[in-house]
């Protein structure tokens, strides 16, 4: 039975006190995995058996899951004499399945990427999410910042890209929450691309007191002469002190990217893998209470099943790398971290007509099979080597993610009391 702990904070709202329950851990890393993947190729380990009518089962997520890899027709690895024939080495000595708790059959109530991501971040599917639209209900970032008094740099959303709504998911339009409680957002594949270097890097840096202070003084004077008609310029509002730190962080990353000093996964040949290296840098520098990383390269399955397998295998590599990075480089944080992994949606049972270079069918996501996903968690206070539910006994839903994170970080009651998460949502700890 968890005790009650009251902790004072200065909230963005100006309140100076927020009561939280005891935490299960001080840090959460949520991996949104990995752009829509089928149960057949992930948790059920059917490889080509469940999709291409070839009797070749096998596990290609061997950092996450227990199970032997496929024995033939290896296409998901690195190129050798044949494309993809060299599987990527394991990152973890013990799978996350053994380290933690696996929910084998979870319901994803929305079968689109952005709807699915919204369900994971808002805890509800009751508001229709249009493309290029911010969430309508508060995200877990906003709940944490408002009810646990976290600063902007305590919450990060790392996107593998900036397609469609991804850059909009770090805060909602909800009138009681919104941008005042937004998380920081970063899409490293763009920020640290050649375009990023051309437009963001190597700018003049100003001394905080001698130069930035008078610049700010003049800006304040100009602002006083203008009766603005809107408070909103959009985006996260770091404090001035946080902005100095974040800018210093970005400039450091620009410099170290140039000299190739960013610690990346051993294989880094897609955007997901490059992004995970920068996610590790965010975690190292800020040790956020919540870091959400969206991996999405597996969505290539709309047109290329072979690349889908390869990118899913790489997403597993990315998760293994990040968990390993935290354990090896941030031992104090490692003891206080819980890792969550959940796909935002699955994919169809039946293929579309598109075939790839191996003459394999591609898959979209729109049917009931697309509502089938898994979920897992590992780390502090998570029961180890526990497997819950199966195909005939689904347990859990993707909207549970919000209450699970809220539970870990001590604000489950406060979030539930707002009445904005799905009525049937529960913390995964309450489903064990």
């Amino acid at each position: 039975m968890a005790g009650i702990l009251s902790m004072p904070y200065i909230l963005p709202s100006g309140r100076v006190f927020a009561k939280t329950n005891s935490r299960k851990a001080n840090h959460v890393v949520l991996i949104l995995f990995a752009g829509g993947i089928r149960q057949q190729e992930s948790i059920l380990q059917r490889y080509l058996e469940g999709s291409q009518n070839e009797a070749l089962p096998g596990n290609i997520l061997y950092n996450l899951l227990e199970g032997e890899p496929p024995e033939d027709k290896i296409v998901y690895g690195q190129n050798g004499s044949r494309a993809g024939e060299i599987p990527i080495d394991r990152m973890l000595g013990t799978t996350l399945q053994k380290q933690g708790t696996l929910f084998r059959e979870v319901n994803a109530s929305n079968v689109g990427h952005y709807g699915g991501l919204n369900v994971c971040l808002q805890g509800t599917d009751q508001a229709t999410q249009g493309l290029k639209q911010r969430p309508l209900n508060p995200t877990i970032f906003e709940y944490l910042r408002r009810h646990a008094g976290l600063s902007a740099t305590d919450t990060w959303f790392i996107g593998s890209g900036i397609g469609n709504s991804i850059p909009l998911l770090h805060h909602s339009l909800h009138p009681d929450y919104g941008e005042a409680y937004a998380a920081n957002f970063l899409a490293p594949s763009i920020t640290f691309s050649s375009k990023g270097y051309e437009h963001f890097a190597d700018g003049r840096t100003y001394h905080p007191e001698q130069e930035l202070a008078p610049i700010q003084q003049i800006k304040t004077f100009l602002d006083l002469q203008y009766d603005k008609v809107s408070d909103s310029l959009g985006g996260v509002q770091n404090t001035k002190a946080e902005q100095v730190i974040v800018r210093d962080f970005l400039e450091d990353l620009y410099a170290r990217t140039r000299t190739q000093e960013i610690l990346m996964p051993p294989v880094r040949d897609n955007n997901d893998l490059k992004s995970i290296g920068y996610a590790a840098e965010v975690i190292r520098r800020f040790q956020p209470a919540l870091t959400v990383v969206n991996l999405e390269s597996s969505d290539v399955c709309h047109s290329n099943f072979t690349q889908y397998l390869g990118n899913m295998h790489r997403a597993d590599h990315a998760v293994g790398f990040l968990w390993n990075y935290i354990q090896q480089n941030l031992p104090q944080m490692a003891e206080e971290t819980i890792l969550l992994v959940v796909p935002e949606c699955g994919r169809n049972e039946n293929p579309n007509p598109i075939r790839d270079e191996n003459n394999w069918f591609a898959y979209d996501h729109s049917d009931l099979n697309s509502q089938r996903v898994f979920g897992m968690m590992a780390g502090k206070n998570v029961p180890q080597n526990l497997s819950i539910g199966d195909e005939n006994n689904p347990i859990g839903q993707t909207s549970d993610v919000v209450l699970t994170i809220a539970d870990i970080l001590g604000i489950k009651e406060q979030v539930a009391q707002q009445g904005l998460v799905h009525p049937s949502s529960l913390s995964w700890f309450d489903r064990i």
Partner: protein
Amino acid sequence: MNMHVSRWMLLLGLLFIAACRSDDQYLYEVNTLDVLASNDHKSRQKSEDQYLATLYTNLYQESVSGNKLADMREVMASFGDKDLGRQMLISRLLVDPEINIPTNAEMRADLDGFVEETYRRFLVREPSMAERTYLKNILIKNPQLTPDMIYLSFTLAEEYQFY
């Protein structure tokens, strides 16, 4: 009868005289004045594209290409803190030798001209007397302030976000 004719003749004569009289010509001598907007009607927030295109045009004194605008938009979208993102973008543009910016010596040689030109360039209006005095004073009191720092303040100002 003769009296009646005479009256008509007199009336016609008066009408003729009035018709022939030329209008007076007045010439008002006024100074030529550029009419610039004040800030009180700027109520529409610039979109990200409008902000970036205006910023580029104001700094380079030429319009931005579609490709460059798209690149800047993409980089801005990759970062969540729009205020800090703009700071980074602007401070990057301000070190580009291609931008049209006076030197520190030029600014200090003609503070009045610099203040006036800066208001016109970025806020599309004349500074008020109070604004002119404030900016001149702060430049005099802070010799470390350079034109790029003033430009940074103006392009981050709330008024610059609106049109």
